[in-house]
């Protein structure tokens, strides 16, 4: 196992960081040592693990990370749900019932996805409030605030599009009402609503395009925005104390 040669140890100064590394190498097995010899992961990992955090960082600074954790859970459980979900008006509801009642642990996967979707809105709001009241949105982090706002809109659209997919009475009417909102836009509103619903009423075409938005278009866009969000905060660092 890795961690025996003096060369491999040089990235760490404290024993606790070494312990964390030993845990990782235990989990990844001996392959890690071989890869580390060629690619020198250890230095990169030690930099990541030993990244200094300012002393004023407290409980309120964790909500961005919690939001990202829930986002990862949503990605894993969402892909799992894709294995059984059928996006047609005849079969959507039946397939959701099948996932919940017949597929082993389907209730668990769907439950995670359902509750994750609810909780992520709470955590992202707390994250935004923390950033707002600390004034962390000010330059030089103003662009990151913009990206974060776009991410929050992406999450709202995730929720709106995902709500229709079980094809229940509630989701149907929520979409009928929700799709009317853009019609308030001057001049182009009616066209927006028509485009959103894929027709005059919420039917198969609406379900198909909500499905496409929920599982492909939004995830791709959100991942790009998340990358920008993280690169910028890594470059600019955590904002100072109040």
């Amino acid at each position, binding site marked *: 196992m890795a961690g025996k040669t003096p060369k491999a140890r040089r990235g760490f100064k404290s024993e606790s960081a070494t312990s964390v590394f030993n845990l990782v190498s235990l989990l990844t097995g001996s392959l890690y040592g071989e890869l580390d010899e060629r690619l020198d992961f250890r230095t990169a990992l030690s930099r990541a693990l030993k990244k200094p955090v300012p002393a004023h960082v407290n409980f309120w600074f964790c909500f961005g990370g919690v939001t990202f954790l829930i986002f990862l859970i949503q990605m894993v459980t969402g892909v799992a749900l894709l294995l059984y979900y059928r996006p047609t008006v005849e079969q959507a*509801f039946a397939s959701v019932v099948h996932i919940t009642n017949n597929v082993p642990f389907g209730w668990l996967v769907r439950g995670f996805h359902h509750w994750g979707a609810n909780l992520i809105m709470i955590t992202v709001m707390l994250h935004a409030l923390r950033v707002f009241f600390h004034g962390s949105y000010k330059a030089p982090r103003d662009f990151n605030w913009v990206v974060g706002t776009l991410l929050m809109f992406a999450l709202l659209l995730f929720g709106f599009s995902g709500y229709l997919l079980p094809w229940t009475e509630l989701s149907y009417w929520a979409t009928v009402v929700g799709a009317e909102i853009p019609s308030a836009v001057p001049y182009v509103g009616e066209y927006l609503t028509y485009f959103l619903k894929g027709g005059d009423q919420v039917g198969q075409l609406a379900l198909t395009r909500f499905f496409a938005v929920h599982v492909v278009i939004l995830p791709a866009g959100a991942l790009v925005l998340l990358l920008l969000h993280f690169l910028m905060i890594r470059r600019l660092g955590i904002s100072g104390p109040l």
Partner: protein
Amino acid sequence: MSTPPAPEAEVPGLPSLERRRFMHRMLNMTLGFWALAGLGGAGYVAGQYVWPRKEMGTTGGESSISFPFAEMKDKGMVKKLVNGEAVGIFTVDGRLHALSLVCTHLGCLVGFNAEVGEMQCPCHGSRYDINGNVLQGPAPAPLRSYGVRVSGDTVVVG
């Protein structure tokens, strides 16, 4: 000329150091054990979830039901459960019809309008003819039709 105090030499095998190493090793092993157990559990759940199952689960209930023909005379339509699904049995021009009452749009129960001879959904206005075919949306598919016949004094559905 003062001599600097001799540094406390780190003697290999010093008891305190041994103890610390031992504790670290135990901590790592404990963490590793629980991490592996967690991974194993997650792997079991994932394996169970993704492995395809043949059985889809049935709705339950009887696949064929019968009731006395006299029931038909009182009402325009008789409602029965077949395969756990609500089925309406009615006569139009002396012919028996048996249709699923579950609207193919969102699963509301449709009603039989005897005046115009149509099945009508109260939720979103879908209309079906007496054979279950869609006359008006948003229903995407016809109502499921059931075989129905009269055997002596009883009506047999399914």
